C-alpha cells in the first residue's frame, strides 16, 4: 500500500546523531553481557574486547557502524498465500498482533480466565480474517501446553490457523531448532526457507545491557538460515533504564545495535528488524505502562532511529493498560496506534491484548482492527491532484446546489472516505430504536460471526501431520 504521509519527527538530526554516538560509547565502554560461548567467540573474532569469564563483549565503534551498513534496508516478510507479503523498510506501516497473554477476557462471560490452546487458535483465526491485521505476532502462551515446549505449540497453532506472516518467540535452543524444522517442512528445503520465509523469530533482549543465552542461540539459528529476526529491547524507564525518555532511548538503541552486530557476524545479508518496546513503570504503583503518552513518544524515537540507520523497524503500538475493552482502552489504544504510525514504524505490533500485554480479548481485536483502519486512512493522507482538487467540478456547480448526484462524488466516495465496520454513525433515534448498543456488543457480534464462519487456508495434509510430529518428538525428548 502506498503511504504518502511523511513520517512525523520528534528528534532533530543533531539529537539523532548524539543518540548514535552515545550508543556507540556505551557499546565500547560498558559492552554487552552475552552468556553464550558461541556468541562471545563471534564477537571476539570480529575484534570486540571479550572477557570470557565475565561473558562481556565490548564492541568497537567501527564494528557497529560497519555492521549497520551491511544490514539489508528493505526486506520482505512472506505469507503462505503470497497475498499478504509485506515489504519492510523506509516508512512502510503494517499493523499486527502481539504476544505474551496467558489470560483472556472470556467472550461469553466477560470474566478473566486462563488462555488455552483452543483460545489461541480462535484468536489467530479471527486475526486471519480481519482485513487490517497485516501480520501475526502470536498473541498468547496457552497454559495447557507444557511449559518446556509452549513456544513450539505457539508456532504450530499459528501455522495451522493463518496464512499471514508469523512472528513468534523462541524460549529454548531445542524449540528454536524445532521451529526452524517446521519452517523447513512448509518451505520444502533450506533454499525455499531462505528465499521466502513465512516466519520470523522475535528476539527479546534484557536491560541494562544483557542478553539471555537462549535468545542469542535462537537468533544465531534463525540468522544462519535467513529467517528474519525481529530484535527488540523493552526496558522500563525508571526501573531498568533511566527514568528520562532520552536516556531510555539511548540504552535501548545500544542494546539492539549490540545484538545487530552479533547477527551480522553470522550472516550480514540476513533480514533484521530493528525493534523496541521501551516503556515505563507507573511511579506510584510500579506497574508497567504501555498505554501512555511516553510509550507513544518512545516509539517515535524507535522509528526515527531505524530510519536514521536505514533499517526495517518494529515496535509496540495499539496497546492499553486498561483491563478490558472500555473507554480507557479506547483512549490508550488510539493514542498508541496513531502516534507510532505517524512516526513511520514499519511493524506496529499490539492488537488483541488488554491489561498491558497479559490478556487477550477477541472483542478488543475486532475494535483494534477498526482503529487500524482509521489510522491507515490517516496515513494515506490527502490525495492531491487536478481530479481531487476538482476545480472544474466546483465551477460547474457554481453557487448553491450540491454535490450529491455528481459522478465525481461516486467516483471518489470510497477511496477518499473510510467507512466504519463497527463504529456507530447512525442518527440518534435510529440508534435508540436499534437497542442503544455500545461498541462492545457490536465487536462481540462481529467476533462471534467470524469465529463461526471463517476457515483458515488449510495446510497440505502431509505438512500438517509433519508439524504435529515435530512437536510430539520434541515433547518425548524433553518431557
Amino acid at each position: 500500500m502506498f503511504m504518502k504521509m511523511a513520517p512525523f519527527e520528534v528528534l532533530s538530526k543533531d539529537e539523532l546523531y548524539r543518540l548514535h554516538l552515545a550508543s556507540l560509547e556505551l557499546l565500547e565502554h560498558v559492552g554487552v553481557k552475552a552468556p553464550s560461548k558461541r556468541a562471545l567467540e563471534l564477537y571476539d573474532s570480529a575484534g570486540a574486547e571479550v572477557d570470557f569469564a565475565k561473558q562481556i563483549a565490548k564492541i568497537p565503534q567501527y564494528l557497529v557502524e560497519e555492521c549497520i551498513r551491511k544490514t539489508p534496508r528493505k526486506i520482505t516478510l512472506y505469507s503462505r498465500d503470497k497475498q499478504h507479503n509485506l515489504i519492510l523498510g523506509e516508512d512502510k506501516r503494517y499493523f499486527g498482533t502481539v504476544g505474551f497473554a496467558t489470560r483472556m477476557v472470556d467472550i461469553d462471560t466477560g470474566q478473566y480466565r486462563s488462555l488455552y490452546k483452543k483460545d489461541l487458535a480462535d484468536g489467530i483465526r479471527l486475526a486471519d480474517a480481519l482485513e487490517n491485521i497485516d501480520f501475526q505476532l502470536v498473541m498468547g502462551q496457552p497454559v495447557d501446553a507444557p511449559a518446556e515446549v509452549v513456544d513450539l505449540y505457539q508456532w504450530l497453532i499459528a501455522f495451522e490457523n493463518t496464512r499471514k506472516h508469523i512472528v513468534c518467540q523462541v524460549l529454548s535452543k531445542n524449540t528454536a531448532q524445532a521451529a526452524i524444522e517446521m519452517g523447513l517442512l512448509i518451505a520444502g528445503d533450506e533454499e525455499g526457507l531462505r528465499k521466502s520465509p513465512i516466519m520470523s523469530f522475535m528476539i527479546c533482549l534484557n536491560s541494562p545491557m544483557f542478553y539471555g543465552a537462549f535468545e542469542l542461540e535462537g537468533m544465531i539459528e534463525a540468522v544462519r538460515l535467513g529467517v528474519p529476526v525481529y530484535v527488540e529491547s523493552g526496558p522500563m524507564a525508571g526501573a531498568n533504564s533511566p527514568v528520562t525518555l532520552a536516556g531510555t532511548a539511548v540504552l535501548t538503541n545500544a542494546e539492539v545495535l549490540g545484538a545487530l552486530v552479533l547477527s551480522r557476524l553470522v550472516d550480514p545479508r540476513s533480514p533484521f528488524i530493528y525493534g523496541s518496546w521501551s516503556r515505563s513503570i507507573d511511579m506510584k504503583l510500579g506497574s508497567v505502562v504501555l498505554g501512555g503518552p511516553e510509550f507513544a513518544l518512545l516509539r517515535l524515537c524507535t522509528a526515527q532511529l531505524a530510519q536514521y540507520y536505514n533499517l526495517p523497524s518494529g515496535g509496540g503500538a495499539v496497546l492499553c493498560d486498561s483491563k478490558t475493552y472500555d473507554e480507557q482502552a479506547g483512549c490508550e489504544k488510539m493514542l498508541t496506534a496513531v502516534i507510532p504510525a505517524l512516526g513511520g514504524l514499519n511493524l506496529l505490533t499490539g492488537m488483541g491484548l488488554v491489561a498491558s500485554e497479559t490478556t487477550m480479548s477477541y472483542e478488543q481485536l475486532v475494535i483494534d482492527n477498526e482503529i487500524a483502519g482509521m489510522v491507515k486512512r490517516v496515513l494515506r493522507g490527502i490525495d492531491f491532484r487536478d481530479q481531487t482538487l476538482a476545480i472544474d467540478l466546483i465551477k460547474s456547480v457554481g453557487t448553491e446546489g450540491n454535490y450529491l448526484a455528481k459522478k465525481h462524488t461516486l467516483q471518489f466516495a470510497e477511496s477518499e472516505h473510510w467507512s466504519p465496520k463497527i463504529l456507530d454513525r447512525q442518527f440518534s433515534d435510529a440508534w435508540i430504536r436499534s437497542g442503544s448498543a455500545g461498541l462492545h456488543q457490536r465487536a462481540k457480534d462481529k467476533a462471534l460471526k467470524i469465529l463461526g464462519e471463517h476457515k483458515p487456508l488449510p495446510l497440505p495434509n502431509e505438512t500438517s501431520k509433519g508439524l504435529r510430529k515435530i512437536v510430539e518428538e520434541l515433547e518425548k525428548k524433553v518431557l
Partner: protein
Amino acid sequence: MSELTQTIKDALLTFEEEKIEETVVKRLQSGGNPLEIVNAITAALIEVGELFQKGELFLPHLVMAGEAVKSVILNRLEPLLKATGAERKTAGRVVIGTVAGDIHDIGKSIVASMLFSAGFDVIDLGKDVPADEFIKAVKERNPNIVAMSALLSTTLPVQKEVIEVLKKNDLRDKVKVIVGGAPATAEWAEEIGADSYAEDAVEAVKVAKRLGEKKT
C-alpha cells in the same frame, strides 16, 4: 512518634541519606541504645511505606529510603546489636529470588525493597536461582517466608520444583511460600501447593504480613 523516628522520617522524605547516618552516629556517641535506634528507624521506614501505599510517594522514593536504612542498619547498628546479643524486631524473615532459568528480576527487586520497608528482614538471592540455593538459604537462614518470582511461562514450573524440593528436605512446613510474576496466578499457587500468590509488590507485603501472623 519518638523524636528520633520523626527526625529519621523527615530525612527519608527529603532524600537526606547523610542526615540519617549522621543522626545515628550522634545518638550512638551520646550513649544511645542501638536496639532503640534500630526500632525507631524501622518505625520511620514503615511510615514511609504507608505513605507510598496511600499513593503519596513515588516508588523510587520508597526504594531509596529502603536502601538508605538498610545501609545504616547493616553497617552501623547490626554489628553493635550482635556484640550485645540483642536482636532487632522484624516482621519476619523472607528469602526471595527469581527462579532458575529466568533473568528478569526488576519486579522481584521491587518486592524485596517493599518487604524491607515494611519491616521484614529480606535475604535477596537475586535472579536465576536454582532450587538448591533456595533450600540452602532456608536451612542456613531459617526464614518464615520463601518468595519466588518468574516472568517466563517456561520458568514458572521451577516454582513448583522448589516446593517439591522443600518437601523432600522436610522443610515445607517450616516456611510459608509466596509466588508471583507475570504468568503466575492464584490458581497456579494453589495447584503447586504454595501458600499464597501476590500480583504486585503492595499485595506481596500484605500477604507476607498475613502469613507472618499465622505462624506466630
